[in-house]
């Protein structure tokens, strides 16, 4: 069964159409890149999937179960995790504590202390993303690249089946980007599907087997990177955008 099923999703704000009939199936453990000019609706799509916006029409289903109308925390518990365009970490908590928040616990025990298994699982993910050394550092004091890795690790601690990454490479140096790709690989090893929004075209075309291009709120291409790269509609969409955009789309974005 398709892991994530988006069918004909539409959303308008006060007359402005943000999503204009988006259909996007995502399979288990798939890695899909979503690109498109600014304002194409990429982040809006994430917000709809995660429950921050409710779509006007269309279906959003996770493993056959409708997500429409569910609050964000519920959708997170059902197995969809995300990162944000600007990394959002819990500044006054330590790195380890940031990760421990993402686990679910219940019962009296959860009031009294943090169960050992929660701590262990969190430390596991710290190791996966290479942040062990910063375990007891307050998250507010981390370097930018580390913030992103922390966010991803935190998203994965909850054992999601789908991870949404919102422009993870923004503001990253070359080495950070290499690390990012490695982190994504580690994530996928754990049977997590990844949906990735990016402006960094070489990164997306280089790492994602499947690429979807959005423009004006609808997909104009959906297929293997090599095919999409040469799709005339896609080229036109990007050329139609300003010169600055096109140049910017090829270069690493500053934060």
């Amino acid at each position: 069964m398709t892991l994530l099923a988006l069918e004909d999703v539409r959303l308008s704000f006060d007359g402005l159409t943000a999503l204009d009939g988006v259909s996007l199936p995502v399979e288990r453990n798939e890695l899909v890149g979503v690109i498109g000019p600014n304002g194409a609706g990429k982040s809006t799509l994430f917000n709809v999937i995660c429950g921050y916006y409710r779509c006007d029409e269309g279906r959003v289903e996770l493993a056959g179960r409708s997500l429409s109308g569910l609050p964000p925390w519920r959708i997170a518990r059902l197995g969809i995790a995300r990162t944000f365009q600007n990394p959002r970490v819990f500044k006054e908590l330590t790195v380890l504590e940031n990760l421990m928040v993402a686990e679910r616990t219940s019962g009296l025990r959860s009031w009294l202390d943090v169960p050992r298994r929660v701590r262990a699982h969190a430390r596991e993910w710290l190791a996966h993303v290479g942040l062990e050394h910063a375990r007891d550092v307050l998250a507010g004091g981390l370097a930018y690249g580390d913030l992103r890795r922390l966010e991803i690790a935190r998203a994965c601690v909850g054992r999601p089946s789908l991870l949404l990454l919102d422009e993870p490479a923004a503001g990253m140096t070359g080495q950070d980007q290499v690390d990012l790709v490695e982190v994504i690989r580690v994530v996928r090893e754990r049977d997590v599907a990844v949906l990735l929004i990016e402006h960094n075209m070489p990164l997306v075309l280089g790492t994602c087997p499947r690429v979807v291009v959005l423009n004006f709120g609808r997909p104009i291409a959906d297929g293997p990177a090599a095919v999409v790269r040469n799709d005339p509609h896609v080229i036109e969409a990007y050329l139609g955008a300003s010169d600055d955009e096109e140049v910017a789309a090829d270069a690493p974005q500053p934060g």
Partner: protein
Amino acid sequence: MRGALVLRGALGAAAVAVALLVPAIVEATAANPPYLQQVIDLIAIFAIATLSLTLLSGVAGQLSLGQGAFMAIGAYGTSLLAVRYHWPLGLAALAACALCAVTGVLVGVPALRLRGAYLVMATLAFAGITYGAILNWTEFTGGPQGIQGIPAPAPFGTPLITERDFYYLILAALALALAIVTVVRRGHRGLRMRALRNDELAAMAVGVRPAYERTAAFAISAALAGLAGALLSMFVGYISPDLFTIDQSVQILTMALLGGMTSVLGAIVGAAGVQTLAELLREFSEYQLIAYGAAIMIVVILVPDGIVGGLRRALARLRKGAT
């Protein structure tokens, strides 16, 4: 690391020892022992009330101006049950705290959708309604006269009479409150609350359910404030509405801010600071107001994490400088 742990344990033990020996110290050194003891007792009671705000605001991130109102419910609940219906005092206090917890949930639920300033306003409104109710519902609450003749608690058969006797009961209650807030804060639920306080959006994205955490925080916080109110009523022997005005909630806020909003220790420090100020300026109530206002402003502008927070940072810097 090991050394720090040992140091902490030693400090903790020392603190407990000092706490137990306070009445003896007061007896030995003070010019007017009963008066000083009374001040200390009040500090302890208000420390409990401040702890309720530390939990609600410092941990769960909900700024509330309603703690005075919960104190009122605790105080009036205990007094009415004990004086009118002759319940045993301990049971009355327990029931009053339970009532506070329920009220806390009832207040917390509609407040769930409110953030920041709106939440403050809603809690302010709640405080005003409570005050208005106890002031005007004369048949039930005794109106402006309040309730007199609240019996003294008798935990071991003989009723407590002196301030010194009361001290140990209040200390026990304070210890309970400290334990509750510390444990909740360190536990997994507390972690989730703190995450909610830092960044609600990100917290929701990892499955934290704001409604649950916030309502729980409101309930526990209300019960703690109610406990403080119950103790106050037993300690003073009578209560009246003017003990529980909005100014009272503001005073509790001042205590929490002064000591450090997120710090358990800060609650005690803040309560001690404000109560001391109140006593020193007892004759000049207008200067009290000025002092509170100035304290709030100085803290917010210069030392946002309060006395304890500021000290901790200074200590950390010293340590860094030493290594």
